[in-house]
């Protein structure tokens, strides 16, 4: 009698696991595909950013993940992922982001180009939080 109970319980657990695995397979595959797409997008964005950076900025970005930009007025800004810092005594930090979302490297490229060409517009758009 107890042997039948063990066999029955095992069969039930195995069947439940099979059903669960089938239910989860779709979402897991979907998440994996999304992650792969996102990684590919980040790589493309990095390649585009690197093609725009000067040799000095390129080595900063490769070594530390940020790079400095000097504007036409002579101000120096550090473009970091998710923030920009003005490299003066006050070290003001600015938050400015792309809408809609694009990979981080594309956002850093947009900030670099805006700083180089229109610092006033950058300052008018960005939110200063420090």
């Amino acid at each position, binding site marked *: 009698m107890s042997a039948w109970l063990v066999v029955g319980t095992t069969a039930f657990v195995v069947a439940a696991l099979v059903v669960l695995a089938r239910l989860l397979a779709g979402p897991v595959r979907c998440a994996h595909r999304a992650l792969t797409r996102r990684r590919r997008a980040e790589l493309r964005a990095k390649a585009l950013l690197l093609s725009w950076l000067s040799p000095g900025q390129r080595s900063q970005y490769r070594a530390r993940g940020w790079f400095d930009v000097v504007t036409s007025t002579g101000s120096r800004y550090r473009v970091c992922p*998710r923030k920009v810092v003005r490299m003066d005594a006050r070290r003001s930090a600015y938050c*400015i982001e792309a809408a809609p979302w694009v990979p981080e490297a594309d956002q850093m490229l947009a900030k670099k180009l*805006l700083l180089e060409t229109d610092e006033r517009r950058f300052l008018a758009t*960005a939110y200063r939080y420090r």
Partner: protein
Amino acid sequence: MTGRIHITNAQGDTTRTWDTADPETIRETEEVFREAQRAGRLVYRQAENGKGEQVTLETWDPVEHTELTVTPRLVGG
């Protein structure tokens, strides 16, 4: 000669090309400019000093400015 315009997006970017001798492909690129301007996006080319220079539909020269990038619209965070 062929020109390229990189349009940044969620996939990283999409590249479109135009033939400097083909008015049809140039018209298509002009439409990319118009769409970008409508969306509040800016278009840049790399100047001789390596820095960016803004290009608008009015200042764009399809033969001279053959490498362009459309950046995303930026908003305060």
